[in-house]
């Protein structure tokens, strides 16, 4: 296997937990709690989970907007972790981000063209002609014309705002793009065209995507591999085919069964309860209070990811009977 473009080793990002003299101690939030990921060049890795599971914190940590508490981040084999945010952004400029709500990411008082120029200025492209050339190239790539540069954000539709968001990010010539819920809030017909555009752009510019979403049907059609997160940890990771056709972790199965399909799902167990808050993370496997197959040892120790096939790893000893022994999974 080739060298991964981006690798994280046991990445942890915790918030709070500090005590100061006069204020109340803030609860410790383990937003990301030991995530190891390898993203190969050119692949689309989906990161799926419910709200509060730490998806967006991973994105912020990778970008350098949050500082990791522990663990390593390797970009192209080089260690880029452990730096303060300003420096981290510099060394990680190959990683860029498309905002979840690109409308909110555009200044309402600025014309789109000015915003796009400013982005490049901040990143040190001082020659106006070069900026203009790059911007026009990217506008063209996302299917918009020069006229959009003179428009204000409110004059754009939701789909056009996403396109501008993509153009803005791509004008920085990143190698890896983190897409945070890129289709949320879009209508079905617009969502389809935006997804198609993202696949086309990946092919044209050799991009690698980390695709954060809670929409399983979108992830299934767009991603090569998919990682399922629950309360700061990855509970299952594997090729999209494998995970969607043979989900192993009980949480993955519950997620897939809960996604509304075009036929009425009368049978099938709906998972009960709400995702617990990361401040009150259950002991052991975080999923055990909602898990239909929880055993005594699930309450005590945290199961580790273990391979169940070439292209699938699961953090549950009872997921695949006979394949992972409990003793093996709980060894940490």
């Amino acid at each position, binding site marked *: 296997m080739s060298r991964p473009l981006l690798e994280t080793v046991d990445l942890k990002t915790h918030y709070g937990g500090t005590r100061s003299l006069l204020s109340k101690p803030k609860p410790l939030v383990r937003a990301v709690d030991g995530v190891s990921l390898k993203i190969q060049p050119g692949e689309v890795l989906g990161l799926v989970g*419910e709200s509060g599971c730490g998806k967006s914190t991973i994105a912020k940590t990778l970008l350098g907007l949050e500082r990791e508490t522990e663990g390593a981040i390797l970009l192209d084999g080089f260690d880029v972790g452990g730096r303060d945010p300003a420096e981290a952004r510099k060394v990680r400029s190959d990683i860029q981000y498309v905002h979840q709500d690109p409308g909110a990411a555009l200044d309402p008082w600025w014309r789109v063209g000015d915003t796009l120029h400013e982005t490049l200025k901040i990143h040190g492209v001082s020659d106006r002609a070069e900026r203009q050339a790059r911007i026009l190239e990217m506008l063209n790539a996302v299917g918009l014309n020069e006229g959009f540069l003179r428009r204000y954000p409110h004059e754009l539709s939701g789909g056009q705002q996403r396109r501008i968001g993509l153009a803005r990010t791509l004008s920085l010539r990143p190698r890896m793009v983190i897409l945070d819920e890129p289709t949320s809030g879009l209508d079905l017909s617009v969502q389809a065209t935006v997804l198609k555009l993202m696949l086309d752009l990946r092919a044209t510019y050799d991009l690698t995507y980390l695709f954060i979403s809670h929409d399983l049907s979108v992830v299934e059609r767009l991603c090569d591999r998919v990682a399922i997160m629950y309360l700061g940890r990855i509970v299952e990771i594997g090729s999209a085919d494998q995970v969607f056709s043979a989900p192993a972790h009980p949480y993955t199965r519950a997620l897939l069964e809960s996604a509304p399909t075009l036929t009425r799902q009368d049978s099938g167990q709906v998972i009960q309860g709400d995702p617990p808050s990361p401040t009150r993370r259950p002991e052991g496997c975080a999923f055990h209070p909602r898990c239909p197959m929880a055993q005594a040892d699930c309450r005590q120790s945290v199961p580790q990811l273990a391979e169940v096939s070439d292209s699938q790893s699961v953090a549950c000893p009872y997921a695949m009977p006979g394949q992972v022994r409990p003793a093996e999974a709980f060894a940490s």
Partner: protein
Amino acid sequence: MSDDILSVRDLKLSVKGDAGLAQILDHVDFAVKPGEVMGLVGESGCGKSTLIRTILGLPPKGARIDSGTVAFRGRNLLDPKEAQQIRGREIGFIPQDPFQAFNPVFTVGAQILEILRWSGLPDDPKGARYDKSLRARHKARLIEVLRAVQIPDPEEALDRYPHQFSGGQRQRILIAGALATRPSLILADEPTTALDVTTQMQILRLLRELAADYNVAMLFVTHDFGVVAQICDRVSVMYAGQTVETGTTPQIIDGPRHPYTGMLMACHPERSTEITGIPGQVSSPLTPPPGCRFAPRCPRATEACTSARPGLLNSRDGRQLACVHEEEFA
């Protein structure tokens, strides 16, 4: 037809704004029968929200009804006085966002009891003053419905603040609030879009059970056909302010006949192998195209489509359809 609980007939509504006269609704037409869950599907900007507000008797500012009727059991909802009597009593409402629906500084019990104080319950004694005993009756009813929506410890829940509940629980409390007055119709405006998938499925199943148990009809606004398949008995599809197709859920999902419904279904990730979309954009309500509003984006459009608005005709298979190309089969 008189057994319809809600009927919207030929509703045409325009709103006068700074930019001119926007023709938001153009002949919207459908009906909800008692106890039935009716889906209302359309993309953003198709007029769903305006329609919901009009049914609640709260049309947007500057709105003008050009033609048509909206009736709840034969009573005219376009009359503000009549609508005020019905809204919140016989028609309940579940809002889209359970995170914004509550005031954070009051307990949920205080907030819902305050609503019940002004709406009253149908079994309140006539002309009674709002006193402790009436409040206690309201509280008892609220606890009863909170139990029905599976809120653990309902008595205690009343004294808690909104932030102490998760999104799914808040939505359950809002559903309880809507049910408390024993309405015969509930309007639900995308009640699950703000929720996670596992919670969404719980809420959908709950709504389905409640609709059956309490014999409440529901008008369920959504843009997600997956959600429609879970809960709706029938669906009405809107495009740019026009009703284009109404039929049973299987009819619309498995055999859409209007070109727009067909293309929309083809965009669904479950239905398409290749990622497509619908070319073009929704026309502006300020300058709607003549005739069928979908014609500029429709692959089957001909001259007939732009010359006159296709009427909503009853098809032989029971659905209503507004497309000149399907008229011969209607």
